[in-house]
Structures are given as C-alpha cells and as structure tokens.
C-alpha cells in the first residue's frame, strides 16, 4: 500500500492539531449524561453480536452446524476485543497517514500529561463537548467486533474453525482498521471551532489579523488531519461503509473462494430454527439503537433523530420485503420480514443522523425490495453460495444506504445537511459533490476489502486450509470440529 503522505508528516500535522486543541479544551469536563448514554450504547452493540447476530445466523443453518456458527461469532468478539486494546484503537483512531493511524495509543497509552487514563477525553461532533475516551474506545471496539462476525455467515457450514480463527485477526488488522481510519478518523471540532471563534471575537486591526492567521493554520491542520475517505467528504453516520459494505464484500469473496456447500441446490438446507432467527433479528434491532443513536456520541437531538430513523426505516424495509414476496411468490414469510428488517437497519446505518424520518421510510422501502432482488434473483442467476446472504443484505444494503444518505442528507428533503466546521454552520448542499463523495467511499471500501480479503483467504488457505472435508461437512461441524451437539434430546 502507498501512503499519500509520509508517516512523519502526518504525525507532525497531528501534533500541531493536538497542541492547538489542548489549549482549547484544557479545562473541559465530560458530561455524565453523554457518558451514561455511550456506556449503554456500547453494551447494546455487544448485544447485537452476542447473542443477536449469533442466534440470527444460528437459526438459519442446519442443526448439525448450529454450534459452529455460535462458536465462530463468540470467538470473533473475544479476539477482536483483545486486538482492539493492544493496537486496533490506536491504528484506527490516531493520526498518522490518510490510510492508517499510528501506534501512539497502542496498549491504551491514552493518559494525558500528568494524569491517568481515567482523565483521557475523546471528541464528539460538538466543539468542547467530550466523552471519556475509555468509553469511546469500548464503543468503537464493539463495532470492530461485529464486522468480522458478519462475514462468517457467508461461508457458514463449511469453513474450518482454524481458518476462521486465523482469518478474523488478519482481516481486522489489515482490512477493518484502515477502512475505519479512512472513514472516521478526523481531528475533532475543538481546535478549528476555537480558532473560528477567536476570529469572530477579535478586535479589529492587528488582533484580527493575528487571529485570522491562526485560523488559517488551524484550518490547514484540520483539513490535513483526517482519513482518506473522510477528506473526500463521504458521510457515514454509523458505519454503512466501514461495517456493512466492508463485511459484505469480504463475505462474497469468501463464499466464492471456498466454494459451495456440498449438496448445494440438491439437499434440503432449510433453516433449522426460524424461531431463533426471529429472536436474533429482534435483538439486532434493539442493539442497533446503540449502534446508530450511539454514533451521535452525545445524548442529544441528533441521537433522537438516529433512533427515530432506526425505527421507521427498519419497519418500512420489513414491510417492503414481506409484501414484495407476497406479491411475487404468493406468501408473506417471516424470514422475509426479518431479512427486510435487517436490510433496513443496514441501509439506515449511514443515514441515521443525516436523513429525516420521512426520507428514512423511503430508504427502507427501497432497500427492502432491492435486497430481496439480490438475495433471490441475482444470487440464483450467478450461482454463488453466500449461505446466509451477507453480500445480498449487508453489502447491497450498505451501498443503497451510502448512496441514499448522499441524497437524503439534503435539507430540502428533510435531512440535516452536513456541518462545515471551518465556517461553523451547515454547508450548502450540492447533490453532485455529495454523491461523488459517497461513490468514493463505496468504491474504496469495495476494492480495499474485496482485493484484500481475497489475498487473506488465499494466505489462510495455504497455512491451515479453508475448507472442512466433505465427510466433516456431511457429519456436521458441531460434532467433528467442536465435539459437541447443539441439541441432546
């Protein structure tokens, strides 16, 4: 990989930003309400993965592979948690280059000068409003954990556990961390807002000139210090690109490289418990409020908007999928409604804090039908065995969401518009510019994750082998790989 800027230059820019910022929020304290909300959100996102996603996926496989899916998801949460505090957070959320951060906060070395790690603060989207950095670290940790857990659905029922065990840490390190950095890393609003305020309040004459010069310096530092996709202007409120497109394309690549399940298209591969899938999907919806409304980082109106959108887009998408299926196939299915709900949650993820509620309903209606089309017509036409439709729901839903966000953020359509911190207000909306930015985000993620995942799957195949033997597959992964059965009745 090639960096746009050398590491040292990025570090210098970061240091400038840090110096400028430190004077601004030297005496800032965190708001306990924001902290409480973010701690709640963090455990809600954990709930999405375990048991939400685990049960959603587990119910969809055959009973002989139930535990293998649960084990893979649970393992993923545990390994990513450790990676995150060792170096993951630092590589994703410190300055460095446009593509990856540095090691300055590795091993959670976040304590400010002369203080402890309890005093470290992280920026929100409002100047001089911070939250405790440890909470921000845990919050982002749960995002890093759910993303690779989403991928395991694509190659469910045939991948060796050893292969999953090796693939997940490699993928998080080489695919997730750079994408998270590219999309989400920025300098924070404090320094630029303080400089802007200084210009506005400065007396005329020399003071004004000095303040203006300081502002220009701060503006340059602000524009330089951010991730590559962030600087392209792409907006992604809670992770449509970072989580869903990223995981979805990796899943498709994995499903193609590992091959179809033995007996695919011939044997009965019906879900073994749609009851569990319903429980899992519902827990996903509940947990997703932490994901989307939590991504506001403050317990404010923005969080309430994200919460509202996460209700209505999800409901609209579930109805869209269910009624489309009813019209086309003649029956409304529960699995269709559940799949639609997840597709709606995926699509509203990047839009949650940007779209208006009516826009979110339209987004949900569109994504419900588009994902149904991809999970049935396209998948059958192309013949790949994406076992649990990770691509059809998460990647396709993520793309619909990312592009839809670019449209629905428009204040004329009830959106919030995009904040421009260098002028201190909502920027003028420009459809072409915003959609171009969104395309940059989508395409960068597709290429980075698609190509990178293909390489990683090949590496893992050489080291431990990706695929279980046909005998193991027939017997089921639970008893052969884990020597356990899900149900002893």
């Amino acid at each position: 990989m090639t960096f746009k800027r050398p590491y040292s230059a990025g570090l210098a820019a970061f240091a400038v930003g840090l110096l400028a910022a430190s004077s601004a929020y030297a005496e800032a304290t965190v708001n306990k309400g924001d902290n409480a909300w973010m701690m709640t959100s963090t455990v809600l996102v954990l709930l999405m993965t375990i048991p939400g996603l685990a049960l959603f996926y587990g119910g969809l496989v055959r009973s002989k592979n139930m535990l293998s899916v649960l084990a893979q998801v649970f393992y993923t949460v545990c390994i990513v948690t450790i990676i995150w505090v060792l170096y993951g957070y630092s590589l994703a959320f410190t300055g460095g280059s446009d593509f990856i951060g540095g090691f300055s906060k590795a091993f959670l070395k976040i304590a400010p000068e002369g203080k402890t790690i309890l005093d470290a603060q992280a920026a929100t989207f409002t100047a001089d409003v911070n939250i405790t950095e440890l909470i921000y670290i845990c919050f982002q940790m749960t995002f890093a954990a759910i993303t690779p857990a989403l991928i395991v659905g694509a190659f469910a029922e045939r991948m060796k556990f050893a292969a999953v065990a090796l693939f997940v840490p490699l993928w998080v390190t080489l695919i997730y961390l750079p994408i998270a950095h590219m999309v989400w890393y920025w300098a924070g609003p404090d320094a630029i807002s303080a400089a802007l305020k200084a210009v506005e309040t400065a007396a005329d004459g020399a003071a004004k000139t000095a303040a203006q010069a300081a502002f220009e310096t701060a503006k340059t530092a602000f524009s330089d210090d951010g991730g590559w996709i962030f600087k392209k202007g792409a907006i992604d409120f809670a992770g449509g690109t970072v989580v869903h497109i990223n995981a979805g394309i990796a899943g498709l690549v994995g499903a193609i490289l590992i091959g179809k399940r033995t007996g695919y298209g011939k044997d009965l591969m019906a879900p073994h418990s749609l009851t569990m899938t319903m429980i899992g999907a519902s827990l996903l919806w509940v947990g997703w409020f932490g994901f989307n409304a939590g991504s506001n980082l403050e317990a404010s109106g923005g969080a309430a908007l994200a919460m509202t959108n996460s209700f209505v887009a999800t409901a609209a998408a579930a109805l869209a999928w269910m009624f489309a299926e009813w019209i086309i196939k003649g029956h409304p299915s529960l699995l269709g409604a559940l799949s639609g709900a997840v597709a709606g949650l995926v699509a509203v993820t990047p839009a949650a804090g940007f779209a208006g509620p009516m826009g979110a309903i339209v987004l949900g209606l569109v994504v419900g039908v588009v994902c149904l089309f991809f999970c049935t017509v396209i998948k059958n036409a192309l013949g790949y065995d994406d076992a649990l439709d990770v691509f059809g729901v998460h990647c396709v839903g993520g793309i619909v969401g990312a592009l839809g966000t670019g449209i629905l953020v428009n204040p004329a359509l009830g959106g919030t518009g995009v904040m421009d911190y260098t002028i201190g207000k909502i920027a003028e909306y420009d459809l072409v510019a915003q959609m171009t930015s969104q395309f940059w985000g989508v395409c960068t993620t597709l290429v980075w994750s698609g190509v990178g995942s293909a390489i990683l799957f090949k590496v893992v195949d050489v080291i431990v082998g990706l695929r279980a033997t046909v005998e193991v597959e027939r017997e089921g992964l639970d008893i052969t790989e884990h020597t356990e059965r899900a149900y002893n009745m």
Partner: protein
Amino acid sequence: MKIVMAIIKPFKLEEVRDALTAIGVHGLTVTEVKGYGRQKGHTEIYRGAEYAVSFLPKIKIEVAIASDQVDKTIDAITTAAKTGQIGDGKIFVINLDHAVRIRTGEADAAAL
C-alpha cells in the same frame, strides 16, 4: 392374533385413540414418522431458495389384538382418522405369532 398398523394424520391421533378405547382396545404404540404416498410433498421457500419436501410428517400407530377384533378395529380407525382429503393414510394388518407380558410372563391372548 394380529397387529394392526395404521399411518394417520398427526392431528387425528386423539380421535383414533378415543375410538379404539371405545371398542375395548387397551394399549397402543405411537411413533412419529415421515413418508410419502399419493399426497406427495410440499414446497418450502426460504429467501428464494425453494425446497421440495417430499417426506411429510405422519403418525404410525400399532395395536396388537385378537383376530376376531380386526374388523372392528379397522372400522374404528377408518371412521376416526378420515377427513376425505388426500393424505389420510393407510392401514396394514400383519399376523402376530406370539406375545408375552414382561411383568408376569403371561403369553399370547392373556398378554394382549
């Protein structure tokens, strides 16, 4: 002695049991089975993946009776299990050579 074996629709089990009790058949073995006959199977659809499920769930009951009770038993089962729809099931009658009650050692007619 005979064994009357019947394959019936699952939701007809209670009615069949009541009918057999009414004619004095005390004892019945029930097994959950799957199979197909003229009813064939049905189609299940999961997110667009269609599966032809050719084995339908049925209940198999077995009763051991004296030979002179066979007609009455068949009548009782037929009446109770009939819906008139395809898939009501079948009755098979098999010769029974010997029977023993495990607790007492009684044999044949006394063991039924």
